[in-house]
């Protein structure tokens, strides 16, 4: 059985190594773990993708439904992101209604997609105020080994990028074309350990970290979403440093999904 918490000795070792610019798993401070992206695994979903980030594994399914637009934006389609931390993914996940961690995860993924305007929501509306497409992005965590945010954002992007509306599944208005994505947001998450920033923390590093910072970067290098988490803090200099690293890392990650 894998233990839930790294031992104190191991935690200390992780932190000590990082202050010398090294990591327990041999990575550099700004290196990602090995990333694998597989799209289209779930035939029933309009779009799907599985991302493996080291041992972290996330599956995202995109479904399309017809529904009513929100009354305050009658001309726009609806984007709904939900995240499930299913109990099979970690001994620390419990069944039941979404807790604050899964809600935060879903909302960070949502913010990246929404604020980068990746989906042309206004093109999803069929009849203003009455009928529109609703895009459901469901994040399903299969194995938790740290940095769920980056894995989920990348999987959501891959699922949306590879999505197609199949005939018969959803009734499509004649002449309506499946949506091309307009933007490709990628999240880059940092952990602060011993006052140093490390990219893509794995589970044991997350247990040691003081605080977490996620920067979502869109295709032109602009920042479109930020989320700080954890009980520690960052200085302004660290935040600026993170934004620079994030831009560079996001571009590398994006290439794994967007092949143009």
């Amino acid at each position: 059985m894998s233990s839930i918490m790294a031992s104190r000795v191991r935690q200390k070792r992780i932190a000590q190594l990082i202050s010398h610019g090294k990591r327990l798993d041999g990575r550099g401070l700004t290196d990602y773990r090995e990333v694998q992206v597989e799209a289209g695994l779930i035939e029933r979903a309009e779009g799907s993708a599985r991302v493996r980030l080291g041992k972290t594994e996330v599956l995202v399914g995109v479904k399309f439904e017809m529904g009513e637009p929100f009354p305050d934006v009658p001309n726009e389609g609806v984007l709904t992101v939900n995240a499930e931390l299913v109990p099979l993914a970690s001994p620390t996940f419990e069944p039941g209604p979404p807790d604050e961690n899964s809600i935060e995860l879903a909302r960070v993924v949502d913010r990246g997609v929404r604020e980068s305007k990746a989906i042309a929501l206004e093109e999803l509306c069929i009849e203003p105020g009455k009928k529109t497409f609703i895009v459901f992005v469901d994040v399903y965590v299969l194995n938790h080994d740290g940095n769920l945010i980056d894995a989920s954002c990348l999987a959501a992007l891959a699922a949306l990028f590879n999505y197609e509306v199949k005939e018969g599944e959803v009734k499509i208005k004649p002449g309506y074309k499946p949506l091309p994505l307009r933007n490709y947001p990628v999240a880059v998450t940092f952990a602060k350990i011993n006052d140093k920033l490390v990219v893509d923390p794995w589970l044991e590093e997350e247990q040691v970290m003081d605080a977490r910072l996620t920067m979502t970067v869109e295709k032109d290098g602009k920042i479109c979403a930020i989320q700080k988490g954890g009980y520690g803090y960052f200085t302004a200099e660290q935040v600026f440093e993170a934004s620079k690293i994030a831009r560079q890392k996001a571009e590398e990650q994006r290439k794994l999904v967007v092949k143009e």
Partner: protein
Amino acid sequence: MLKTSQKKPEKLIDENDVRLDGRKLNEVRPVKIEVGVLGNADGSAYIEQGKNKILAAVYGPKEVHPKHLALPDRAVLRCRYHMAPFSVEERKSPAPSRRELELSKVIRESLEPSIFTEYYPRTSIDLFIEVLQADGGTRCAGITVASVALADAGIPMRDLVSACAAGKVEGRIVLDLTDVEDKAGEADMPLAYMPNANAITLLQMDGMLTSEEFEQVVNLALDGCKQVGQIQKEALRAKYVVAKEAEAEKEEAEEGEE
């Protein structure tokens, strides 16, 4: 009657760099903080920031219920950010929304670094933030007022946490966005700060910013936090320094009688 979000005005910033509510680009809305406003709470405070009206109450440190949540080496901080159904234009269901649950989490994480939780092992400090009226920037005003309420409860703290948002509206970098500015603007970045530790304890953003704009917005928000911090300190002084002086006067009077 306030009708804030009925119609989006054509321009939010006029040619003289004046905003809809008459503020300059780098100006915080008028902030008023009152300390110790609730009878039952161990600490409480009330803030008005523009049209925002928010109450915060602290109970504890006290025994944890349920017991299994207790930590052996420090207090648990629990936080509930909640909006009253009548606080927004269209009635909000009183059940906690996903947004409120997320905000409760980030607010807790923004305040915990300021508290010496290790002084009170096996206890809980419960913090309640009720938004009575909302006009943009409620999480920041909530953090600001909660930090004052924690101080009012006498909980030992490293620093006061001050929060303020900055963002981008109509291509301009502005401080302390209202609801209309947030909705129509290009970016909104709430930030919380402990000045003595130079520590950013809350940082969120949605919108689009280039790296130069990002640095400008962070610096402007930090500036806003420092302004808010002054008002927090004044509010605490107004309660405690005045109370202390009154006590001293009373003692003097009593001595005189003798």
